């Protein structure tokens, strides 16, 4: 990916040692690559057409959270107030006090010029009762609902993500512009063959490949 790679083992360690470190690949650090013909603005327009209900569907590590981070400023630009709930580690229930805290925020300052959007990252982790509560809450407060999920979940699909090899190659090339790497297209292809659409796992594997090559000089 870069012919200018040099062995920096004698230099002090820094984040510039590996382009696949968290700081370079976390959601928001790497720009989301939209499929041809799709833009953030078009997705927000589609979300509005779907009565502000939409699901971003894709397997682990396919870029759902990255897309959410990309959509948030666009939603704000069209007058939406975004309220985010991030569910992690198999969290099957909504956060304690969810209805009260969010209800007071949404209801307390509701006005005609704003649309409230509840964004749930990791919706598939919620149990059915929590999902019913959440959807009821949104209907009651006329709030939109934008979620990420691993599979269709009863909310109109906004986009389905399944990163192909050429997209991963583009992302790796973009990372290599920031930090040089001995990683080649064959490493990327091998990692993609192993991990499929899970770009997060691909980056983890390439991180290890990069460190291995770096150690061997």
């Amino acid at each position: 990916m870069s012919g200018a790679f040099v062995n920096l083992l004698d230099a002090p360690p820094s984040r510039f040692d590996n382009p696949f470190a968290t700081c370079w690949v976390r959601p928001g650090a790497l720009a989301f690559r939209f499929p041809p013909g799709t833009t953030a603005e078009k997705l927000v327009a589609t979300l509005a057409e779907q009565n502000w209900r939409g699901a971003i569907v894709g397997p682990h590590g396919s870029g759902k959270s990255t897309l959410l981070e990309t959509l948030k400023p666009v939603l704000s630009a069209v007058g939406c107030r975004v309220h985010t709930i991030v569910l992690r580690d198999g969290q099957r229930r909504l956060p304690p006090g969810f209805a009260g805290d969010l209800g007071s925020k949404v209801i307390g300052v509701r006005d005609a010029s704003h649309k409230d959007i509840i964004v749930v990252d990791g919706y598939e982790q919620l149990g059915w009762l929590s999902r019913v509560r959440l959807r009821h809450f949104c209907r009651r407060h006329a709030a939109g609902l934008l979620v990420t999920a691993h599979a269709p979940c009863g909310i109109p699909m906004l986009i389905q993500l399944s990163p192909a090899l050429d997209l991963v190659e583009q992302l790796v090339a973009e990372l290599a512009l920031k930090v040089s790497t001995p990683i080649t297209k064959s490493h990327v292809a091998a990692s993609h063959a192993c991990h499929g659409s899970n770009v997060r796992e691909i980056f983890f594997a390439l991180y290890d490949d990069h460190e291995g090559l770096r150690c061997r000089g």
Partner: protein
Amino acid sequence: MTLPVIRITLDPPSSQYQPGDRLSGRLTAEGAQPAKVRAVELSVLWYTAGKGDEDMAVHHFERLVDEPGRPLDLRVSHRFSTVLPASPLSYDGLIVKVCWCVRARLFLPYGLESMAEAPFRLGQVTAATEVSATDIADTDGEGRNE
């Protein structure tokens, strides 16, 4: 607008320090006059970089502000100095790295920012190396022979 080029120069002997050593240097910004600098923040800090969650802490911090009567002119070098702590020591691991640096952030008009870093090493922890299964087997064999 052309962003100023920040230069962080660490005083000799090198970018290798031991706990308790004094780290000193100077900060300048070339071309700082056309793009007037509103403030500059200088930090001596450590952070982790790697595959997992990240951590960081600031050891030394100073903020210089452009004020009436006290204009901030970074064409003239600004000196900084601090005594380095006992830990964490720099570590070049395979999964995680502990990195020390001097970081300068320039705050410019219209919300523009410019940043530069000067990495250095604290302590002398040996870098991690990959160990193959063969190496482990060889080591086990040596142990048994003893």
